[in-house]
């Protein structure tokens, strides 16, 4: 079974440019998460989707960040315009659901390392 797929693995852009990250969750997983991991820190949740609905985006900086999950499968996270402080690793994770139960374990992708110059 394929794991969570993310692309690109690395992205270098200049500030004020737009950038997009793509995530393909594990087949059948209804819940999808985007996490931000700054250097030397643990990941922090940006947004959670239940199928195609964003049910928790309280930590997403909506002035420059946007996300979508069309048809409840793949997801795209966009930054426009990027700032120097956006340099970080963006992790995608998925789970069968988000309620109680070990079957709702989150599986992570390899992340995208973004560098903003």
């Amino acid at each position: 079974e394929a794991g969570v797929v993310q692309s690109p693995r690395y992205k270098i852009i200049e500030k004020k440019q737009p950038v997009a990250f793509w995530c393909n969750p594990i087949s059948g997983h209804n819940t999808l998460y985007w996490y931000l991991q700054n250097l030397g820190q643990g990941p922090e949740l940006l947004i959670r989707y239940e199928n195609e609905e964003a049910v928790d985006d309280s930590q997403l900086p909506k002035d420059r960040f946007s996300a979508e999950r069309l048809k409840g499968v793949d997801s795209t996270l966009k930054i426009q315009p990027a700032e120097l402080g956006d340099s970080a690793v963006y992790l995608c994770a998925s789970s069968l659901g988000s309620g109680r139960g070990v079957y709702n374990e989150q599986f992570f992708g390899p992340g995208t390392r973004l560098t903003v110059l």
Partner: protein
Amino acid sequence: AQTVTQSQPEMSVQEAETVTLSCTYDTSESDYYLFWYKQPPSRQMILVIRQEAYKQQNATENRFSVNFQKAAKSFSLKISDSQLGDAAMYFCAYRSVLNTGTASKLTFGTGTRLQVTL
């Protein structure tokens, strides 16, 4: 809001020896999950071990075991017979069992970098 604290930025252990990584957390909930994740240089977060708060028995997974002290809100990871492949960042994480709002998110600590020497 829940918080997770890892007070050891770096730890070192010799191959075949045992090391313990510390984690404390703060929550007002009585039921929750605790996890240890490993993050090698490839950046992929890998689940090492899971503990359900309502279970008194400490979880074990082969060479990995935890010491879960619910009253003290402590959740340490013990790695026995350390191997070179254990070298990585280790993150302690908390998740509520609820499914409302932000409850199902993982709250991570700042991590402990484990070095394994020959």
